[in-house]
């Protein structure tokens, strides 16, 4: 029952996003622009290799905010959030459903950007895709949990679009830092064994914030 409710909400969000593709298009376009702009910023840099992971994750983090901003804002039209909360679905199921949809959308944006990134910056990904996708899955879930939580937190504010980035980026520092280090080293061919600690940070971050949010999301959604 609980799983079905989560899935229903996730499917609903994905379906309405696929109808308009508003957030998706904007997000992909934005991450392209960032990737291109970076190439000018680092034009003279001798050692671009050490910057690649950071560059990729900055593009993801900035482009991701566009998707996350839409998440709960989507429910504002016609006050749909009220209908969801008054339904038997517990607030945590609503949250997880929306998080799942955001996760799928973010992953889609990231995969597209990754392809473009590999071409523009001449990065050879073959043989590294397995570990890289593990890093991407873990870090993206972290971004998703924080982003969806704050999307719910700011949904009733008039300055929603401005507040979300200000609130989420300080929270994303541990995730982005770990993901940047792991990605840079993966691209440079450093064995993962030297960086296990960062994988552990990602896992711990995901678990801690998912748990706290699922426990306390009632406080946010039910007034």
């Amino acid at each position, binding site marked *: *029952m609980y799983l*079905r*409710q989560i899935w*229903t*909400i996730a*499917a*609903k969000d994905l*379906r*309405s996003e696929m*109808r*308009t593709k508003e957030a998706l298009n904007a997000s992909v376009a934005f991450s392209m622009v960032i990737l291109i702009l970076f190439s000018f910023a680092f034009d003279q840099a001798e050692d671009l290799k050490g910057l690649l992971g950071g560059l990729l994750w900055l593009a993801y983090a900035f482009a991701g905010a566009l998707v996350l901003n839409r998440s709960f804002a989507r429910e504002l*039209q*016609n*006050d*749909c959030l*009220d*209908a*969801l*909360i*008054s*339904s*038997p*679905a*517990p607030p945590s199921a609503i949250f997880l459903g929306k998080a799942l949809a955001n996760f799928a959308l973010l992953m889609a944006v990231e995969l597209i950007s990754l392809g473009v990134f590999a071409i523009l910056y001449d990065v050879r990904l073959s043989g590294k895709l397995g570990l890289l996708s593990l890093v991407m899955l873990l870090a993206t879930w972290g971004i998703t949990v924080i982003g969806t939580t704050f999307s719910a937190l700011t949904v009733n504010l008039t300055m929603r679009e401005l507040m979300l980035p200000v609130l989420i980026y300080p929270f994303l520092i541990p995730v982005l830092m770990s993901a940047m280090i792991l990605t840079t080293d993966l691209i440079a061919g450093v064995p993962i064994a030297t960086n296990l600690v960062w994988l552990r940070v990602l896992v711990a971050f995901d678990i801690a914030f998912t748990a706290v949010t699922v426990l306390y999301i009632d406080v946010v959604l*039910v*007034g």
Partner: protein
Amino acid sequence: MSLALEVAGVYKFFGDFPALRDVSFKVAPGSVVALLGRNGAGKTTLLRIMAGLSQPSQGSVKVNGAEAREAGTRRRIGVLGHSISVYDELSAHENLTMFGSLYGLDDAGKRADAMLDRVGLGRVRDGLAREFSRGMRQRLAIGRAFLHDPELLLLDEPFTSLDDKAIAVLQTMLKEMRDRGRTVVMSTHQLREAMELSTHVTFIQRGEVAYDGERQDEMLKDTSWLYRTYGDN
């Protein structure tokens, strides 16, 4: 016999301001209660608490003897608020199926089809809600609220913005609910429509219950009688 709805000593504070003060009343199954009061009296706040959208600061709301925020209770409640609460990007059928499966209906698709026929949207079941006229969207919202055959229906100002056809649909469905012994609580300004349907009246003034009881004949004849008799200005 268990009560359809029992509101006991409910307070709701916004900061220090009591929007509801010691609101208590009981509703027997099969009643249609008109929740009356001026703007800002606390009708919407009370309905939101009954619908489980908001927690009371003190006191409790019980539906069939169970707390309003329990999932099992919310399955028995249908809510129709100010706004239509349907998704513009989804089709009429998808909207209803989606809510049906949130309510745990196994035959959500079939029920959605039947409901669309009842509200007169069977022909456009695959049209997106955003392409509908205002009246059609309102009927879709009515269908959403009635879809899971609720035992208790909560309506917030249902007649205010509806068009004629939607009012007709809503009235038929409300009468049918009443005849089947289901319970309805609706807040409204439109006294006449509400009075014709209702069996009981709860009048709220500045967050307190000023009158709670059966509908009296005077209320039907003269709509401002209630305000004059029980209101303080």
